[in-house]
């Protein structure tokens, strides 16, 4: 167990190094000059700026300096917000993205399991048809359309109620998080519902269910103890990659709902060619995702005794 975890962690560190290198190479391929701005500046000022960010050194040297700093966990100063450290930016804004992402995953997972189980129970009857129709909608409509519609819904809801029941944008309280996380989790929820449904239907035909039924267990007990518990397993496997997709895919929701998350920073940084912020966020996200996948894999070993970690 310990050896397995250790092995995975070492592989993870190498993966993070790979991500960092790939980012560094890709970023230096981007045409354009990060130090250039609206107003042209004197050569003296430019030289000072280059020295400040170490851009006066050869690229290979910059790469090794960057790797060295990365080891000490220092990503430098932002190019666009010159008095903020990239570490501060990540520390301030990642928790927001993470909260949003986790809440979205929570909605997606509970919703997916619940709806999936329901559709399986009511197979080919009205609830199944309605839910599957909604699922199909959830899978086939782009998230930005949902985000815009969701916000519009809140505006109308509030104006109907005559007061602000749920804030239409912003961040802070739980009610702020409600709509954005639901919008963000919708696609995943639809995916999980489908998965849950087919996994439930497959299990119905398994021998142990037949045995349980033959033993005369109550349908409710069979449903909860045997069917549901076993059907959830495949759902958990896809959760790892889905966490990844959700936490990095929050740009649109963050933009529409005015949420101070890290995703928005990344898009801005790419547009502004803010080298240090691009490097910092990508490496940080990469490391986070690698860690998430490892954790999910290890957890899976605990949940499903059939999987032996080796």
């Amino acid at each position, binding site marked *: 167990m310990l050896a397995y975890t250790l092995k995975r962690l070492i592989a993870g560190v190498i993966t993070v190094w790979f991500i960092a290198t790939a980012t560094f190479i890709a970023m230096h391929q981007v045409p*354009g*000059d*990060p130090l250039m701005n609206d107003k042209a500046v004197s050569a003296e000022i430019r030289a000072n700026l280059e020295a400040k960010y170490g851009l006066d050194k050869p690229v290979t040297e910059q790469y090794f300096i960057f790797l060295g700093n990365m080891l000490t966990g220092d990503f430098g100063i932002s190019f666009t917000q010159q008095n903020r450290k990239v570490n501060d930016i990540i520390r301030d804004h990642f928790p927001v993205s993470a909260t949003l992402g986790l809440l979205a995953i929570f909605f997606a997972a509970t919703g997916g399991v619940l709806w999936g189980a329901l559709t399986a129970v009511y197979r080919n009857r009205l609830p199944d048809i309605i839910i599957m129709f909604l699922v199909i909608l959830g899978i086939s409509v782009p998230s930005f359309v949902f985000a815009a519609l969701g916000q519009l819904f809140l505006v109308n809801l509030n*104006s109907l109620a005559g007061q602000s029941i749920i804030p*239409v944008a912003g961040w802070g309280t739980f009610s702020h998080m409600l709509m954005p996380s639901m919008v963000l989790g919708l696609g995943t929820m639809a995916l999980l519902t489908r998965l849950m449904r087919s996994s439930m239907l497959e299990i119905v035909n398994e021998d142990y269910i037949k045995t349980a039924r033959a033993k005369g267990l109550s349908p409710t007990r069979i449903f909860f103890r045997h069917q549901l518990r076993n059907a959830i397993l495949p759902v958990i496997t896809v959760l790892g990659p889905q966490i990844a997709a959700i936490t990095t895919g929050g740009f649109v929701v963050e933009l529409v709902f005015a949420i101070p998350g890290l995703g928005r920073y990344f898009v801005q940084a*790419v547009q502004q060619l803010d080298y240090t912020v691009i490097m910092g966020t990508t490496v940080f996200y990469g490391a986070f995702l690698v860690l998430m996948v490892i954790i999910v894999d290890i957890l899976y070993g605990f949940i499903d005794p059939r999987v032996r970690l080796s």
Partner: protein
Amino acid sequence: MRHITVFLTCLLCQFAHAEVEATSVDFHSQTLTIALTQEPPQLNSAKATDQVSGLVLGHLMQGLVRYDRRGNVIPGVAERWEMTETTATFWLRKDAKWSDGKPVTAHDFVFAWQRVADPKTASQYAFILSPIKNAAEINEGKLPVTELGVLALDDRTLQVTLARPTAYFVKLTVFNTFYPIRQDFFESRGDQYAADAKDLLYNGPFKMTEWTHSASLKMIKNEHYWDRENISLNAINVDYITADTRARLNLYTDGKIAFTRLDGETYKDALSQRFRIRRFTTGSTFYLEYNHRPGKPTANLNLRKAIQYIFDPDEMVNRVLATPGNLRGESLFPVWLNGVNDKFRREYPAPQAGYNVKEAKRYLELAVNEIGPIPPLVLLVSDSPTATKQGEYMQGVLLNKLGIELKIDVQTFKQRLAKMTSGEFDIVGAGWGPDFDDILTFGDLLASWNMNNRGRYNNPEYDRLVRLTMNSTDPKTRMDAMGKAQQILFDDAVVLPQYEQGVIYLLHPKIKGVARRVIGPDPDFTYAKIVP
């Protein structure tokens, strides 16, 4: 199932308990809530360049002089001033204080201005100091900062030695680059200066008490501000930071913010909700800049003339931009610039080509005779939706009416700048906003020495007129020169003015006394008050 029920109940509780937050304007506490389009990138006044930082700083800091609502210069930290050909002297008011209660002195200005000129600060706006003696040399690293022509004669007298006679010097000091910075505080913060609410010292009508990056900030009335009796607002809350106009309109509709700008996509929704819509001309000119470097097809005058005659600014403003407030692009010099006694554009009307297909085709024929068939031209634009839309429009116009193919080159901010500087374009969509209240802020843009002249237009006669305007203090001489410059811009079709930017916005009807201005913080809530 029980667990699920419990969870659902919890959710419902959350709905029910969602606190009803304060509305965007509150009469009793005189509090105002707004949204910003982005996080202020730089609140160090010596380095700030953008509008959002300018807006925030404008409420937190005060320079020597400022503008009133109608654009007249009125005393700020300085209570009076005196100008000669070679010097400007400012006498500071006794009661001007920092937010820690210490007085604002002339030394704070000297220190701040030296920081700006210092090449180590790498301020983009260092050039704005150029009327001050030695400023340019210091910025190029040729002289130490102590040589800057600015001197604190005593705590309350500031004397500036000018490099050349500068008619507009007093107006220049409105700009945030000229705000004071106190040395001891600045040095105590080091690299962290202006990084957070506690890392700034304020001498303006408000002070910042909270700053959650990218989320919110709070400005409250500064109890040490000299004119505090006339400030009605107790607090300005910035509760939201979002660039999405629709999100901001939704927040306005929801009563969460008291001010938002509209755009072509959102104004119809605001209209159908019966909001009071207001209009404001920002004072910026948008134009197409040609590449004048030798060898480029756009270096040919007749080709530029052909485009000048085929472009219909009316259609641009009314059908493409299609929001009220924009003015037809008739000149590089916007309408608000002052001339001798009246507005410059009323004294020196800009010559107009007018939409004329025949004339355009005649010029095109001349151009083809000179440089052969016109190759596809590259139009460099930024990646903003408005810019690309305008690019698509120009593409349609040139192709359908003149048969000239236009290739649109959409680039992000830095890439576009890099291409503009290296000259990898034929035409580039550009805009220019004023830095100070004088015609020169537009006039010297196309001078051959100006680094921002990205098309590298070079005309000795134009340069001569700009120099004349720079070195003279006589309004008539200066405006005559600029009137001639405007004629050259037209005759040479140096740039193609497209429109003068106007914006429409929503402002809560209970707020009175908000100033919108071309120069300085905009919008300015300093003297705003909330009526019942």
